């Protein structure tokens, strides 16, 4: 039982698909982005008309396309989750060192990923829950190297506890790396290292968000 769940009923904010749709609206034509597992994987299906976005996968795929369809799977063409994919027109293949040169060298326009926690200092925790089996993959490279790190997540955890908090309690993926947070209830931006609430989801009030966010932030609603 958490301290907040007796005070704060569950709100009907954006669904997971609607969070993805909200993120998709912020992508610019010509962006190359990396998508983490979970909500981010739904972003491509909500891209606005005329917005062409190139998807990058850590295993060396630029121009990731949809599942190729039953019977067309190729074991030599997968995404970073080892699922069968296709290539879009203009796609390219690189080796792992070059793939991470793209990431670390700042050549991606954005990385969009899930999170366990984000702190008011833009610290991210998303790779490891202590006591579980540790595995890190490319998460630490992605957040260290990409200028725009956008987090998509539920605003609170299953117990109703805040995930946007003063300081992360789970092991960090990176320090001061997050630039935006999209949740079912709100959109936040980090400006000059400080957290700013920029948008409430339809039907959600500033007070609703205040009650479910323990991090310090200011409001600048658009």
């Amino acid at each position, binding site marked *: 039982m958490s301290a907040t769940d007796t005070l704060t009923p569950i709100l009907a904010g954006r669904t997971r698909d609607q969070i993805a749709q909200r993120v998709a609206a912020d992508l610019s034509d010509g962006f190359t982005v990396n998508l983490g597992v979970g909500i981010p994987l739904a972003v491509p299906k909500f891209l606005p008309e005329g917005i062409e976005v190139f998807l990058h996968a850590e295993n060396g795929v630029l121009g990731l396309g949809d599942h190729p369809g039953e019977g067309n799977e190729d074991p*030599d063409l997968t995404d970073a989750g080892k699922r069968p994919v296709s290539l879009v027109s203009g796609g390219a293949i690189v080796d792992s060192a070059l793939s991470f040169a793209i990431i670390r060298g700042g050549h991606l326009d954005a990385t969009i990923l899930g999170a366990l926690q984000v702190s008011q200092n833009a610290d991210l925790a998303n790779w490891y829950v202590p006591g579980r089996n540790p*595995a890190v993959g490319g998460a630490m490279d992605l957040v260290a190297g990409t200028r725009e790190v956008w987090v998509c997540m539920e605003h609170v955890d299953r117990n109703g506890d805040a995930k946007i908090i003063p300081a992360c309690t789970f092991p960090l993926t990176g320090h001061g790396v997050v630039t935006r947070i999209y949740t079912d209830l709100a959109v936040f931006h980090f400006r000059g290292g400080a957290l700013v609430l920029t948008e409430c989801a339809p039907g959600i009030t500033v007070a609703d968000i205040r009650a479910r966010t323990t991090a310090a932030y200011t409001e600048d609603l658009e």
Partner: protein
Amino acid sequence: MNDKYREDVMAALDVVPSGSSIAVGGFGSSGRPDALLNALCDLGKRDLHVIVNNVGDDYTGIGRLVAEGRVRRFTGSFPILPSFYDDYFSGKIELELIPQGTLAERLRAGGSGIAAFFTPSAAGTMLTDGTFPLTYSDGRPAAHLPAKETRDFDGHAHVLEHGIAADFGLVKAHQGDRLGNLRFRLSARNFNPVAAMSGRTTFAEVEQLVDVDAIGPDDVHLPGVFVNFVVMTGAPVPAGPEFTSSMKGAA
């Protein structure tokens, strides 16, 4: 004649001593040199330090090496196989967990004469501050990954990572010739070039053994200078060596 092709995989690989460090290509089962890994198992090699991105999620490839207790130390980013963690938490295997990009660059550096480099990946995290358990004993951490030297560049923390020059490299390619020139196919390329570079002695298994010059000079993904021995896998070869536009998705 410089002929790196060996028909007998077992005889070729028997030069690998137990206790060796081995850099292995592949991302999951994609591009993983299973014929070479199976030969290591069949030859009874043990006490191996395996440097590879994933263990995989079944008992093939690296998973077979782990299941048969042949791995002393794993250096990589994404082990996943449940029995791997059983071995880790029971003290049978050491886990040097590093970010995936750091792994790729350490292999590239080790094969390029670069002793070490500074990277921002994992700076200020438990993977570089000396708190991540390398090995367990009696259910408690018995040793930790050493804290890595940290330095600021342009106001951002970076950690010192060492290149990895492995005793052996094991890789898989789509095509190869007797000189060891290799061509990969689609995302099966992944870690294979850097694992081949890292190995002081590198074995390549190829789906197709082709004549010299069948891979044009502009199409050689990894030149034979990085490869010492070539073997055939006998694995099924995908329908066409070229990726055709009809295979492209609509997205």
